[in-house]
C-alpha cells in the first residue's frame, strides 16, 4: 500500500507485485518481451527499464513497489537503452518480416516501429539453423528466437512438462528440446501455449490452410466444417469486433462465402460427449470400478496423462472428444447417404493446436478410416477470411446448417474450464429448471482457479469432482491421486489455463482481460440458448434412435 510518483504524477498502488504493474495500471504501456503476469519474473529483456530520481536504471518488472518511490519511464537515457537493446536483438534476428508467419502480430516488429528503429548497424553473424516442422501442431524456427524464455517458463511452470529449455551459453545460446531433438521425438503434447506467449515467429502454428483451399476448389469434394465452442468468442479479435463477442453467425456466413458446403457445430459433438460421458460416469459409480473418471475431450491432457501417468491412463474416459464424435457421425452419415456422390471431407475449426495431432490417433479412426481430415485453428481461419477479402465485422450473420447445427448451452460451455463438468451435471441431475441450473453453476466449478473442487449429491451418493486447468495443476492433482490422497469420482482437465478459450490456436495476445471476455462470452452463449441440456437437444435424440442405434460404441468411443 502506498503511492508512487511516476513521471511526476502521483499514483496509488495496493498489492501490485512489481513496479511494472503499477506503471501499466497508470496507463503507461511499457514494452516487454519476457514479462507475463502468470509466469515467474525473469527480467531478461530489459525493455521495461525505468530510472529513479538518482539516475539509477532498473528493470521495473523485478522491483517491488515502495511507498514514495519516484520514477521516470521515458527519459532520453532510457530511450537510448531500449533502442540499443532492440537494435542488438534485431541484429541477431532473421529479419524476413514480409514472409514471416508472425508478420503483423510480432511484438519485435511492433516495438521496432514504436521505438523508431530504422537502421541496424551490426552484422548478423549467427549461423542459420534448421526449422523444426516435425510436430503436427507447432513449428519452431530457432532463427527467430530472442531468448526471452517465455516458452521455457510456460512449458515448465504452467504446463509442468518442460520440453524446451535454454542450451549452450553466451552468443551460442539457444532454446531447444533436450539434445536438440525434434519436437515429435519429445513428450510435447502440442498444446501450443509456447506459441501463445512467443513474442516473435520462433514458435508458430503448423498450418493446413493451403490443403483446405485446394479442397474447397475441388468440385468433386463436399467440404464440411465443424466449429468448436471457443472459436466463436475469439475469431472477432482480428476484425475489430469487441473481445469475447459471439460471432458465430458472421463466421458461418464467411465460411459459406469461402466455399464450405455445409457448416455444423462441434457443440453438437459436445452434446454427444455429454450423453456418453455421463453414462460412463454413472456406470462406473454404480460398479465402483475405475474411479475417478478422467475427461477425454482435451488431447493435450490425454497425451500428458499417457506420458507422465501411464499407470492412471486407464481412468481416461473411453469417449472420443466432441471433435471426433462429430467426425465419426458425419462420416457415417456420408456413407449412408448414397445420393451425394462427392467425397466428404471434414475440416474442423478449433481453438487448439493439439487437435491437429488428435485426428491422427488410430483409436479415433472408424473402421480404420480417419474421420476428421484437417484441423484449422482460429488463427488460420482468420487468415483465410482475410485472404478471401472479407471483413468479418461487416458480414451479415447466417445460421448453421441442419441437422447438426443445433446444439445446447451445455455443449457451448465445453469451451471453458468447468464446462464439461457443468454439462455432465446438468445431464445427471436432468433438470432444466432455472434454480437447479443455477445451483450447478454455483457449486464452485466455474471460475479461473487452476484446481477447483466440488461435490454434488446424485440421489444418495455424493459425487466428488475436481476441475483442473493447466497441466502443471493436473500433475499436482494426479500426484495426489497416485498417492491415494484424493478420492474424486470425476476429474475434468483442460490443458490450457481457463480452457479452450485460451487455446494454442487462438488469436494473441491473450491477456487476463481477453480471457475474461472470452469466458463471459461463452457463458453468454449458454445463457441465450433455449436448450440447456444435451439430452433435450432434439437432434441428439433422433440420432440415438436412428443412425447411432447399436453403433454408439463404434462411433462414439475409442476403438482399440
Amino acid at each position, binding site marked *: 500500500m502506498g503511492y508512487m510518483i511516476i513521471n511526476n504524477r502521483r499514483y496509488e498502488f495496493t498489492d501490485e507485485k512489481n513496479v511494472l504493474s503499477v506503471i501499466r495500471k497508470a496507463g503507461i504501456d511499457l514494452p516487454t518481451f519476457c514479462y507475463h503476469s502468470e509466469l515467474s519474473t525473469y527480467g531478461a529483456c530489459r525493455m521495461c527499464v525505468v530510472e529513479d530520481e538518482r539516475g539509477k536504471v532498473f528493470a521495473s518488472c523485478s522491483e517491488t513497489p515502495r511507498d514514495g518511490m519516484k520514477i521516470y519511464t521515458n527519459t532520453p537515457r532510457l530511450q537510448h537503452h531500449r533502442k540499443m537493446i532492440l537494435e542488438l536483438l534485431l541484429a541477431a534476428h532473421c529479419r524476413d518480416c514480409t514472409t514471416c508467419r508472425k508478420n503483423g502480430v510480432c511484438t519485435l516488429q511492433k516495438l521496432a516501429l514504436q521505438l523508431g528503429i530504422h537502421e541496424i548497424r551490426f552484422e548478423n553473424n549467427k549461423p542459420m539453423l534448421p526449422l523444426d516442422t516435425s510436430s503436427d501442431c507447432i513449428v519452431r524456427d530457432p532463427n527467430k528466437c530472442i531468448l526471452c524464455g517465455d516458452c521455457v517458463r510456460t512449458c*515448465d511452470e504452467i504446463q509442468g512438462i518442460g520440453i524446451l*529449455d535454454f542450451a*549452450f*551459453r553466451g552468443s551460442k545460446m539457444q532454446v*531447444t528440446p*533436450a*539434445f536438440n531433438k525434434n519436437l515429435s521425438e519429445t513428450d510435447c503434447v502440442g498444446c501450443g501455449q509456447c506459441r501463445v506467449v512467443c513474442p516473435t515467429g520462433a514458435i508458430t502454428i503448423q498450418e493446413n490452410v493451403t490443403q483446405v483451399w485446394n479442397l474447397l476448389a475441388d468440385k468433386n469434394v463436399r467440404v464440411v466444417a465443424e466449429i468448436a465452442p471457443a472459436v466463436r468468442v475469439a475469431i472477432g479479435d482480428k476484425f475489430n469486433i469487441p473481445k469475447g463477442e459471439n460471432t458465430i453467425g458472421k463466421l458461418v456466413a464467411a465460411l459459406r462465402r469461402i466455399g464450405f458446403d455445409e457448416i455444423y457445430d462441434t457443440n453438437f459433438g459436445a452434446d454427444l460427449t455429454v450423453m456418453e460421458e455421463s453414462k460412463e460416469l454413472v456406470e462406473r459409480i454404480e460398479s465402483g470400478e475405475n474411479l475417478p473418471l478422467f475427461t477425454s475431450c482435451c488431447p493435450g491432457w490425454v497425451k500428458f496423462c499417457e506420458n507422465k501417468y501411464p499407470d492412471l491412463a486407464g481412468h481416461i474416459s473411453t469417449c472420443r472428444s466432441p471433435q471426433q464424435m462429430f467426425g465419426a457421425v458425419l462420416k457415417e452419415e456420408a456413407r449412408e447417404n448414397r445420393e451425394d456422390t462427392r467425397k466428404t471431407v471434414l475440416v474442423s475449426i478449433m481453438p487448439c493446436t493439439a487437435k491437429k495431432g488428435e485426428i491422427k490417433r488410430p483409436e479415433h479412426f472408424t473402421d480404420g478410416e480417419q474421420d476428421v481430415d484437417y484441423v484449422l485453428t482460429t488463427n488460420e481461419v482468420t487468415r483465410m477470411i482475410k485472404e478471401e477479402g472479407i471483413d468479418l465485422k461487416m458480414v451479415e450473420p447466417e445460421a448453421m446448417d441442419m441437422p447438426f447445427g443445433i446444439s445446447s448451452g451445455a455443449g457451448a460451455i465445453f469451451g471453458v474450464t468447468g464446462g464439461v463438468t457443468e454439462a455432465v451435471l446438468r445431464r445427471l441431475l436432468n433438470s432444466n429448471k432455472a434454480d437447479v441450473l443455477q445451483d450447478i453453476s454455483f457449486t464452485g466449478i466455474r471460475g479461473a482457479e487452476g484446481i477447483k473442487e466440488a461435490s454434488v449429491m446424485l440421489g444418495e451418493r455424493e459425487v466428488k469432482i475436481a476441475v483442473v486447468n493447466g497441466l502443471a495443476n493436473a500433475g499436482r492433482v494426479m500426484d495426489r491421486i497416485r498417492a491415494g490422497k484424493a478420492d474424486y469420482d470425476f476429474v475434468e482437465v483442460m490443458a490450457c489455463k481457463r480452457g479452450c478459450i485460451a487455446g494454442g490456436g487462438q488469436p494473441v495476445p491473450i491477456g487476463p482481460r481477453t480471457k475474461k471476455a472470452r469466458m463471459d462470452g461463452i457463458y453468454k452463449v449458454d445463457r441465450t440458448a433455449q436448450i440447456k441440456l444435451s439430452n433435450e437437444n432434439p437432434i441428439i435424440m433422433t440420432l440415438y434412435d436412428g443412425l447411432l442405434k447399436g453403433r454408439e460404441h463404434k462411433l462414439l468411443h475409442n476403438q482399440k
Partner: protein
Amino acid sequence: MLDQTYYDKTDEIIASHGAESASLIPIIQDIQNEYRYLAPELLAYVADKLGISEAKAYSVATFYENFSFEPKGKYVIKVCDGTACHVRKSIPILERLYSELGLSKEKVTTDDMLFTLETVSCLGACGLAPVLTVNDKVYPKMTPDDASALIVELRGEA
C-alpha cells in the same frame, strides 16, 4: 543403447549424492570421470531420477564447457591458451598437435580413440607457461617439438 552396467553405475553415483535436483552437477561430473564423457542416455536417465526435465539437464550440461557428450580418447590433451600461455606461444603448440593428430577445432578426437585435443582458458600454472596437460598430468614449458615427442611417447605407451 548402453549396457546395463552403465545404468547400475549411474544408480550408484546418484545414491552417493542423493536423488535431488541440486546434486545434478556432481552426479554428471562423476559419470564423466567414470567414462571420460557424459553419455546422453545417462544424462536423460539422471534427469528422470532427479525429477527434472531432460531439457533442464541438457541446459546445465551444455552450459559448462567441461561436459562432453562425445566419447573422448584415452589421452585427453588440454592445451592452455590463457593469457600467459598465449603470449608464450601456445598456438604453435596447438597447431603442431592438430597436424600431428589430424584433428581440428571441429574434430577433436582421433578415430582410433587414442587422443582428444582441447584448449582450456587457464590451468592456473602460468609460471610454467606454455603448459599442457595429458589426463591431468602437467607438462610445463612446452615447445611444438616437445609436443611432437610427447605424442610419439604416448603412442608407444598405448
